[in-house]
């Protein structure tokens, strides 16, 4: 189970890499493992705005479909287009090439969990 210390996490298993007023967002190693092989990632478009906790897309795997929620409030400034043809990147490299969206943050980042707190949630859910 990989939970990088430098990232922030949401209870709904999204991660955010916050740099100044931008955040790169993806789903955690635990989340992709639970879902299994990804077959399709449905993402918003550049320019869309979300409140933290609002549904921003979905991930489909061979056995399930799950909504993904915005971990921060903000405007979408980039989308990982590579996932359209290669959704498996989310499985292979969830914190790297499998990133989903880049946000310009307008709020909500303070409510995120650090790696230790997120690890506790994962431990509870895994049992």
């Amino acid at each position, binding site marked *: 189970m990989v939970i990088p210390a430098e990232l922030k996490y949401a209870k709904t298993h999204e991660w955010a890499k916050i740099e100044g007023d931008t955040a790169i967002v993806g789903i955690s190693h635990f989340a992709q493992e639970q879902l299994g092989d990804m077959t399709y990632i*449905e993402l918003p478009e550049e320019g869309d705005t979300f409140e933290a906790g609002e549904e921003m897309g979905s991930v489909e795997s061979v056995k399930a*479909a799950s909504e993904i929620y915005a971990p921060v409030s903000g405007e979408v400034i980039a989308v990982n287009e590579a996932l359209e043809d290669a959704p498996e990147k989310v499985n292979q490299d969830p914190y790297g090439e499998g990133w989903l969206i880049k946000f310009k943050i307008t709020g909500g980042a303070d409510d995120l969990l650090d790696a230790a707190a997120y690890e506790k949630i994962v431990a509870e859910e895994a049992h």
Partner: protein
Amino acid sequence: MPYVPHTEEETKQMLKTVGVTSMDELFADIPPELRPKSFDLPKGLSEMEVMARMERLAARNKVDVVSFLGAGFYDHHIPAAVDALISRGEFYTAYTPYQPEASQGTLQAIFEFQTAICRLLDMDCTNASVYDGGSAIFEAMMMGVRASKKRRKLVISEALSPIYRIMLSSYTSNLNLELVTVPHKQGQTDIKGLMDAVDTDTAAVVVQNPNFFGQVNDFTKLCDHARSVKATSVVSVYPLMQSVLKTPGEMGADVAVAEAQSLGQPLSFGGPYLGIMACTKKMVRQLPGRIVGRTVDSQDRTGYVLTLQAREQHIRRQKATSNICSNQALCALRTLVHMSLLGPGGLEQTAARCMELAHFAAKRLTAIPGVEMYSEGPFCNEFALKLPVSAYDVVDALTERGYVPGFPLGRYYDGLENCLLVACTEKHTREDIGIMAEMLGGLLK
């Protein structure tokens, strides 16, 4: 024997087992005012009484007539082999092919059906079919609503079948959508009017080819325009005629829908028929219903499976693309068998024959003084006539004599009480048309 699932004694036992004393107590959670007071069913009859009553009812049908009725449903010839093949018991199972290891035959049949439909309409993907042409239109419009995320406006051509327009308004009545209907112009689809109505608030636009009046159009420009404002274009078609007309795929439609009755289903008093839905690859995740895909197993053997199931109810729950989780499997198989027996050439010949007869009929009928074409544009096998008298009267008078001359358009369009919609199929002969024309001429003298 009474055809009831359980006896009073069994009912009592079951109630006792779940710990209640009566049916009313079992349904205690349902407020009394929501429970049916009575199902208002008549008392049962014996088999003999039922047969006698049904035969009396059936005898009132006029079946031995020459009919020029169309209006979306056409009396085409169905090769005898279709019924012979489709009557095999194996095809009459009511199971859902969710276990591919047990359903390869059914799955392959649906896959072949999808392939045939994709080729006929020049579209990328097709689902396993839906209930009928009207539900296909509603589902297609909802694909547009979902794809656009927040748009609520649907633009509808008034030259779309009125039956389907009524279905669309009742299906959408509680969905908080705005339906904008663009009037027809003398039976022609008002493409310019539709283009003006399709804007950046529009989720989807629907047109029909040939339209309800039989008029043929090329909707390429409309589809282009819809794409430019990110609205979904839906083209509803008469599938048999797609063998000779420009197809929805060639026009650049996002979704093509059709009532497939003309491909091997008997008219059968209005059903069962089947709805066709096909779309571009880009739209496939919005496509409702079942979709069969072809794949290989671990040993590289070809296998067929229901695919993209994440769209469906059993995975997506309340966020499923649609509540349609079934298909008209037997009707779809009929359509596949019918199309396979005719082949592309046979479909084209059939369509051409229908058109030839309809153009002959139009010429013959407009030669009668006072009878003229209602629309000026090109048509396939159906056309509207303007009569000097009420079309209802003409239909009544000729039907009495064994010839149903067509469909009175006044039934759905105000002001067209004198208009008659006439359809020809390959089952008509020039003689049929001649006799009908003689009768009409005599009536109008």
